[in-house]
Each structure stands twice: as structure tokens, then as C-alpha cells.
């Protein structure tokens, strides 16, 4: 199982480099931090909690193979009508894309078109996606949250401290790295208008910095730095900020999430709107990722203490 998880992580990194080759720098950014970073980490935690062994018995591999082959064959047959790779006259490039490509700089005034599409033209979709992430965070919390008693807390802290003294070199190196990771997250957050980046990537990178800290200094130490109720509050505030920007633009006489009315100058209004929206996205994504990691590792500690007591 360990090998499976590691290979999945490498696969994430490889597909990130593939996205760079396909000119999708923003996507590559996200995939590198999510696919190779956080998803591998969560899977490793789960494997650690559920055991590394597996029964080799598979059910009906031949039937499965047959189904897969038939579906794959049909799909390949379907591709014969598709436009060729890289052709500029494909239908996908002739519908709304020209407006995004050539008018967005006049209408939105943000050089990174991915950001202007994400936050402005398709702000409604993004709002939905932020809500989905928030809901997933609530779901994980509902499934894995544990009530911690103070005496357990103290016991876990003692175990953590004794364990983490071993990794002295890692601790020193990581301690110097973390400020730069967090600073980079802020750069990605606020420079998303001009270069690749934005709330989603910044949120994940910021969370990665915190998670790194929690990994090396123990969950209790990380919780002393960032209280979990505070993070939960932040994740809700992120969604709230996003929604309120939409409501404020309605109050100013525009439609929901139409930022042009936020300021006297439409372009300035768009800038302000996108900045606030990205802030909301970044807050929610970062805090949901931190909540998910905290819940996973708290559950794992809880299982360990329970196992220790029953022995």
C-alpha cells in the first residue's frame, strides 16, 4: 500500500509537469501542490490508520477487464469525430473563448485571463465550488472529530515531544523554510491577477506550510499556534466574504457578483472585486485543508491512545 500511495504522488507531480507543457500554468500549480503534496499526505495517514496489508484476491478480473475493454473501445471509436489536437478552429475555441482572450483586458483589466474568467466571468461557478469545498470540510469534521479530554491532551503532548526530538535536522531546516512557504503563499494570493496563481493555489500552499509544521512539531504544538475553532470560523468567513461581495454589488445596482459597480471606475471595481473574491477563496481553501489534516491526525492519535489504554 505504501508503494501505491507513493506512486500516486509521483503521478500527481508528473501530471503537473504535463499541464505546464500544455500551457496551463495555473492548473499545474494547483496539481503540484494538491496531487503531489496534500493528497499523498492524507492517503499516507489513512494507510497508517487502516493497515498496510491487503488481500490479493480480486473479484472477477476477467469480467472487469472485458467491461473496461468494451468501454475503452467505444470511447476510442467516439474520438474519430473529435477535432485534432492543437487545432485552433476546434469548436471549443470559437464559442466564448475569444471574448475571454481578447476583450477581458479591456473589460476586467487583469492580465491573467484565468483569474479574470475564474473570479469575474464565471464567479458564480467558483462560488459554488468554494461552497462544495466548505461542505466537504464540514463532512470530514462530522465524520472524524473527536472530543479530547485534557488529560489525554497532556499525555499526547508528552508522547509528541519525546518523538519529535529525534528529528533535529529536519526540525531546524523546516523551521527556516516555513516562513518562506507562508510568504510565498501570500505572494501567490495577491499576485494572482498578474501571474499564475490565485486563491485556490495560495490556500493550498499556506495549508501545506501549516501541515508541515504540524508534522514535525506534533499536532498539539500546531494546535497551540492555530486554534481549531478559529480555523473553522475562518473557513466560514471565506464563504461569507465571497457571498457578501455578490450582495454588495447587487445593492450597488448591479447583478450578483458584477464587480463593475463596486467603484466609480468599472476596471477599479473589477480589481477590487477579484481581490476580495480571491481572498475569500484563499481563506476557505486554506482553512478547510488545515481542518481536514487536523481531523485526520487527531483521529489517528485518538486511535493510538485508545489502543494504548486497552492493552
Amino acid at each position, binding site marked *: 500500500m505504501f508503494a501505491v500511495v507513493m506512486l500516486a504522488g509521483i503521478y500527481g507531480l508528473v501530471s503537473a509537469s504535463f499541464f505546464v507543457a500544455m500551457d496551463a500554468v495555473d492548473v499545474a500549480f494547483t496539481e503540484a501542490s494538491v496531487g503531489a503534496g*496534500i493528497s499523498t499526505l492524507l492517503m499516507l495517514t489513512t494507510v497508517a*490508520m487502516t493497515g498496510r496489508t491487503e488481500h490479493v484476491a480480486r473479484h472477477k478480473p476477467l469480467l472487469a477487464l472485458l467491461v473496461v475493454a468494451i468501454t475503452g473501445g467505444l470511447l476510442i471509436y467516439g*474520438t474519430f469525430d473529435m477535432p485534432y*489536437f492543437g487545432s485552433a478552429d476546434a469548436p471549443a475555441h470559437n464559442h466564448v473563448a475569444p471574448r475571454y*482572450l481578447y476583450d477581458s483586458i479591456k473589460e476586467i483589466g487583469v492580465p491573467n485571463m484565468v483569474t479574470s474568467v*475564474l473570479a469575474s466571468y464565471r464567479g458564480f461557478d467558483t462560488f459554488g465550488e468554494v461552497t462544495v469545498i466548505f461542505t466537504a470540510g464540514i463532512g470530514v469534521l462530522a465524520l472524524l472529530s473527536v472530543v479530547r479530554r485534557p488529560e489525554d491532551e497532556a499525555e499526547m503532548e508528552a508522547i509528541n515531544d519525546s518523538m519529535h526530538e529525534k528529528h533535529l535536522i529536519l526540525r531546524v531546516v523546516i523551521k527556516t523554510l516555513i516562513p518562506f512557504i507562508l510568504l510565498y503563499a501570500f505572494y501567490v494570493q495577491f499576485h494572482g491577477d498578474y501571474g499564475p496563481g490565485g486563491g485556490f493555489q495560495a490556500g493550498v500552499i499556506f495549508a501545506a506550510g501549516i501541515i508541515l509544521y504540524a508534522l514535525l512539531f506534533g499536532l498539539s504544538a500546531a494546535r497551540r499556534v492555530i486554534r481549531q475553532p478559529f480555523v473553522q470560523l475562518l473557513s466560514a468567513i471565506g464563504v461569507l466574504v465571497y457571498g457578501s461581495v455578490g450582495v454588495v454589488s447587487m445593492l450597488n445596482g448591479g447583478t450578483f457578483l458584477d464587480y463593475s459597480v463596486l467603484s466609480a471606475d468599472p476596471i477599479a471595481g473589477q480589481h477590487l472585486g477579484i481581490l476580495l473574491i480571491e481572498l475569500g477563496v484563499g481563506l476557505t481553501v486554506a482553512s478547510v485543508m488545515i481542518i481536514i489534516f487536523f481531523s485526520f491526525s487527531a483521529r489517528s492519535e485518538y486511535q493510538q491512545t485508545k489502543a494504548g489504554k486497552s492493552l
Partner: protein
Amino acid sequence: MNMILGLYNYWIVIVLMMIGFYIIIAHGHLIKKIVGLNIFQTSVFIFYISVGKVEGGTAPIWQEGIVLFSNPLPHVLILTAIVVGIATTALGLALTIRLHEAYGTIDEDEIQAMDNQEMANQDKEHQPC
């Protein structure tokens, strides 16, 4: 020959997608199923991004003097889909952990067997004959 060069991106996507699909249906281990689901998901990402690519285009960041860009719309869709994907994956893994706590195993067949056993026991209690 032209067709192979023109369509190979779709075929790679289909191969990846079928690998993911096979893992989902042929493996009983729940974490492996989630990994398979992730591979399936990534194949869809690759499909979208490769559709958005324009020959000779560049990354969609506006600059003086560049006229040909790749399509930014698929990038936006996939960018958000990746982050939503990790959130749902986390939810799946959380469910897996709870299943492991409840059943002591995360093998699909064993869980099914235990459920069947329990159902059989319940039936016996309800229908004394």
C-alpha cells in the same frame, strides 16, 4: 497517420481513464479504489486541458505583442475541479477510516460478508419458527 497524430491525446486519456476504471471495479481494497478514482479524475483533467491547447499558443496571460493563447476556460474549470477533488477525496478517506473502525477491515468483500451475516442474524430473531 495524420489521424494518429491528431487524436493521440484522446487515446492517452482513454487509456488512463480505463486504468482508473479497472482499479475501481476490480479491487476490493477501499484505498485502492480511491486511488483509482483519482486516476480516473486526472484523465478527465488531462482531456480538458488538452482540448484547450492551441498549436503555437502560449499560456493565457496577456502581454504586449502576443496574439495566440491557449483557451483559458478549461484551465479555470480544471483548476477548481482539482481542489474540489482533493476535498472529496478527503471525505472518501474519512469514510474509509470510519469503516475501518466499525468493521476492522476495509476490504469490500469482507464488509459485505459481515453485513450479510448480521442481516441473517436479525432475520432469525424476527421470524421465530
